[in-house]
């Protein structure tokens, strides 16, 4: 029967990837990048180039990741899974902490961010569950709304740009470019989970195009957002803002003025994307461990509890927003890169031996 095989299409893969990355990166990466002016933009371009290269390696290694035990042994695999899970939990906690406090501040006041975070996590988990096809279909349905909304927002925001805003450009610095590039790579560490999914995509031998297309679209979008942010608020203005994208949304209105403010709608779209990202983190957690049925449900609940606990602790002064990016850039990203290279080498050696 139709699609009764737990496989997803390339189109679904592309849409999942964009939807899961776009909201979070628009909120945190674009804002940070634009604060570094043209160095940030160049760094982001460099970072995306490196990400594309890594992605190609991950695609080649997809089979090796799925059969990791064969190359690095049971203990090695267990270690890798633990690192991956800790990364997913930390990323989830960071995202949840950020988005719940943003919701508490901009969407609904008078309710504690902890409670909002709990609602968000419950909804994110219930929306996707453990079903790969369900997640794919959800992405396919949400994608046009979220993308159309964001594109419209950027188009409308572009009219607010002023030429003089680009005047106070920062001096070009190679170190700054490299730093921003590495930051982009750090944000892209989440791509490390992709190989575990690729085996379930149709025509898995031809995945370069959709994945590179997805990455390209996200880059274009973020670059456009960063340019518009600088063009609208100026470099100094952007540097004074905590989350510049939110300010951009607040200033963007639909023509006709039939609504006074439209930022709620943009925030709602952003929330959709981040809910999907949160749900995806839970999904990958279970997917990595390969747990099914009741075990899977229990594990998901445990993982959700850890993410929630992390986000609540993060809110009580442990300054998670500062140390999470550092962890991602200095520990997880190098670990994932080394793992990719190591698995590539192991698989080539094994291949040669077989030949």
């Amino acid at each position: 029967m139709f699609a009764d095989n737990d496989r997803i299409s390339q189109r679904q893969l592309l849409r999942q990837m964009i939807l899961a990355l776009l909201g979070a990166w628009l909120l945190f990466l674009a804002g940070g990048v634009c604060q570094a002016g043209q160095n940030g933009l160049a760094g982001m371009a460099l970072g995306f180039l490196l990400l594309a290269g890594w992605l190609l390696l991950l695609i080649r290694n997809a089979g090796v990741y799925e059969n990791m035990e064969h190359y690095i042994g049971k203990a090695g695999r267990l270690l890798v899974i633990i690192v991956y899970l800790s990364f997913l939990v930390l990323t989830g906690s960071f995202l949840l902490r950020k988005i719940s406090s943003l919701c508490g501040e901009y969407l609904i006041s008078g309710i504690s961010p902890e409670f909002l975070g709990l609602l968000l996590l419950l909804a994110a988990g219930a929306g996707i569950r453990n079903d790969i096809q369900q997640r794919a279909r959800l992405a396919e349905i949400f994608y046009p709304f979220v993308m159309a909304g964001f594109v419209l927002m950027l188009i409308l925001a572009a009219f607010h740009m002023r030429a003089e805003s680009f005047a106070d450009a920062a001096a070009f610095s190679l170190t700054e470019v490299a730093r921003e590039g590495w930051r982009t790579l750090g944000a892209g560490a989440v791509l490390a989970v992709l190989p575990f999914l690729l085996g379930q995509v149709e025509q898995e031998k031809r995945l370069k195009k959709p994945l590179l297309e997805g990455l390209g679209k996200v880059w274009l979008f973020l670059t456009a957002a960063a340019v518009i942010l600088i063009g609208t608020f100026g470099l100094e203005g952007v540097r004074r803002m905590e989350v510049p994208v939110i300010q951009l949304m607040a200033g963007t209105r639909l023509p006709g003025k039939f609504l006074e403010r439209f930022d709620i709608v943009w925030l709602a779209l952003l929330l959709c994307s981040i809910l999907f990202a949160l749900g995806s983190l839970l999904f990958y957690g279970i997917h990595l461990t390969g747990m099914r049925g009741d075990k899977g449900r229990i594990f998901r609940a445990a993982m959700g509890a850890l993410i929630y606990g992390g986000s609540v602790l993060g809110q009580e002064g442990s300054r998670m927003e500062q140390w999470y990016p550092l962890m991602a850039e200095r520990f997880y990203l190098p670990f994932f890169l080394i793992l990719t290279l190591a698995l590539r080498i192991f698989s080539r050696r094994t291949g040669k031996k077989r030949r």
Partner: protein
Amino acid sequence: MKKTDKTQAAEKTGKAQKTGGNTKSCGTVGKISVSLDENEAWLKERCANCADIMMHKMYLGREADVAALLVFGEVTVTNTLLEDSLIGKMMNELREVPSGELAGVLDSNALGVADTIAYEDRELALAALLAGNAVLFLDGYPKAVKIASKGYPAMVVQKADTEKALRGSRESFTESVKLNEALVRKRIRNTGLKVEEITLGKRSATVTALVYMEDLIYPEILERIRQEIGQWEIDGVFDTGMLEQLCQKHWLSPFPQFETTERPDRAAMEVLNGRILFLCDNSPTALVFPTTFNDFMQVSEDRYHWFGMVTFLRVLRYLAMAAALMISGCYLAVTCFHTQILPTNLLLSFAEARKGVPFPGIIEILLMEMAFELIREAGVRMPGPLGGTIGIVGGLIIGDAAVSANLVSPMTVVVVAFSALSSFAIPKEEFTVPFRLLKYGFIFLGGFFGIFGIVLGIYLLLGHLAGLTSFGIPYLMPFVGKGLEDYRDPGDDLVRLPFHLLTLRPVFARRHQRVRMRRKGEKDVRGQ
């Protein structure tokens, strides 16, 4: 109506017919005796206190020396026995046959009567009797002959009542499964159209029928429905609604996983799309499956009109669906949490309208929604034109009185009325149910958490729909799944392509049977 080979063979030989659900046999399987007395005694025992079952003893053959027993239901067999009816004429003919040849004449159906079957099994003969036929027993003849007559009283073909259409056939399904099968066959005169009859209900012995195009459907779906039905033992089946609930995989979901129709033209169209029709005796409503979200938003005449208008109407229906679900919740979210969205003038008029209303917004909305639900329910149950009057008068009076008494603001009445009106724009009644129910969820979410709650609601709802399938087909097709297993969009969803471009069948049809139409001698205009 043609039955499947298996069924036909079983009937011809008079052997026990195996069915997907409960079988026709209701007790011990026994052969018909050569002795009429034994058969009569058995029948009298089985039909004791059944005043509506008549037994006429008579003597047949030229010499009038062969005892016979004609058994029939009182109303099911025509009264003008001797003169006009098939049974009457047959009896008259049998009186002219030499007594020694009676058995041979009946065995070889030498009288040429079209609808007779000879049964060797008592229970099958009894089942034929209870199905509305006359059954003839003959002394010295170890079989019983079923002779068809007018059968149980049923309504004739009438105008479709709940699925009104401005263009297209006016016919509606009736309460007779046989007639309904004929109404579909009338539209698809092809032996590829298979009708598989299954008797369900241990006590009701209701005839149901699966109707499908053999080469278009996925055989796994047919097998799955047979299994679903076969796993139940039920005393009576009186409507397709009972079958629907028995066979729903996601029974907790408020979204229907079977589509219903009372229009034979729609049913035939769907059969040609590779879907399966499930008919049930005594029910004028046919089930169509597998089904998707999009199917509930279409009407039969969508195919008959110009594509631009159809597209416009479909967009309107989808907007109405969203409004029916969320407008009350969004109104609460905006007025309680996000007043900054509204232009100042509108905000002031909202505030002015709410002046003097003692309840919070959420109570206001709930009061009005419940009032509308009551009016709707009362209107449905009221007989004839009184129902419509109750709806209009009730709406006007209650709305006006509630505003005058400062119980609710005029804006709330407008919002709730708009929400109710939108729910009526959803073409299928069964599909309005989830939206009518889920609306309350959105009212609470919007009322307590504003847009944040609405977004969570939308995400959960779409997540639920994304996980839903109907016999393996994703519920959100054709909006999802493009490119999966070479699936190509037929162009018949929110936007309907011009008719000459509707060359592909939907996802229900087998992968290699997806071309519905092409110019003669050409490949499919869309490249297949």
